[in-house]
């Protein structure tokens, strides 16, 4: 777990200075322009995590705004750009899960089991955009945690160790979620396209 503990201070990117370095320092000093720079740099990441989870652009934007407002209030606690990235991924993931639980408590149906998911029309030569849309739809039917695991793995290109730290779950659980989700998604997509993938 020592490696996991150090992950928040590292990043996959090489050690070249990112625009976030200076912006973070200035934003912590109260510079709103610098904060705007940080938002622009990370808004796609935060918004897309939420978007791939909730499958609703408006809700995803609201969630992303809440995450950045939370960041604004907690800038003092952010130690480095790598920590900022880790923090944003973590807070966004937790906000997504909270949102999903609130929806469930209110009786809204946010996800369905894979068997309940409607089958798209089976065609052999489906256009790419349609195929990706179908994949996104199937990802959205996964339960909360596996959905986040798959999203962090394929949207953010994170390895299971990093995902485990962000979602605060054991590494083996992450690997298991990933393996099972992929198997289910592959089977569903294969069935929908009517051909072996």
């Amino acid at each position: 777990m020592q490696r996991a503990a150090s992950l928040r201070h590292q990043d996959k990117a090489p050690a070249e200075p990112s625009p976030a370095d200076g912006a973070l320092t200035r934003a912590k000093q109260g510079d709103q322009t610098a904060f705007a720079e940080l938002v622009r740099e990370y808004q796609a990441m935060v918004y897309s995590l939420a978007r791939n989870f909730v499958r609703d652009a408006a809700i995803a934007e609201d969630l992303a705004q809440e995450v950045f407002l939370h960041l604004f209030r907690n800038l003092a606690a952010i130690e480095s750009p790598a920590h900022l990235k880790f923090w944003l991924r973590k807070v966004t993931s937790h906000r997504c899960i909270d949102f999903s639980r609130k929806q469930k408590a209110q009786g809204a149906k946010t996800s369905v089991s894979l068997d309940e998911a409607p089958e798209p029309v089976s065609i052999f030569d489906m256009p790419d955009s349609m195929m990706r849309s179908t994949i996104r739809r199937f990802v959205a039917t996964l339960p909360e945690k596996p959905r986040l695991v798959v999203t962090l793995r394929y949207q953010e290109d994170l390895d299971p160790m990093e995902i485990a730290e962000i979602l605060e779950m054991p590494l083996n659980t992450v690997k298991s979620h990933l393996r099972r989700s992929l198997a289910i998604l592959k089977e569903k997509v294969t069935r929908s396209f009517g051909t072996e993938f």
Partner: protein
Amino acid sequence: MSKNRFDDELKHALRREEPSADFTDRLLARVAQEKEGFCEPAEEGRERQNGRRDSRLSWLRQLGALFTLPQLKWATAGALATLLVVSAVGLYQHRQQQLELQRQAELSAQISEAEGQRAKEQVMFAMRIASAKLNVAQKKVRDTLQQDAGQSVGHQQN
């Protein structure tokens, strides 16, 4: 589709997208609104680490937020004035009730005292009557005893 192709499709399907064009502006507007009456974000972040300060700050923030919009200012002022009037009326009524209760208590105390006095007088009167009767009875007994004593002396002399 090979595993790699499936992975690629997943990556494409879940790739990052930009939010709407006004996302940052909307966020900055909210940040500015939040920042208006309060301290710098870094200072605020430090203060948030202190639980009591934090709750006080958020309470103040909520209170302050009531006064940010002009139409809400009047609504809030109206609500506060109504609250003040209702409180004053309530306080006055409570005070009146207290005074009334106090008056009633004093009255009942006076009544009790008068009744006590009357009872005492009746007892004294009864005791005086009893005492007078007792005196009469005592006198009769004494007279009877004296008569009996006189008669027994006469018999002995005879």
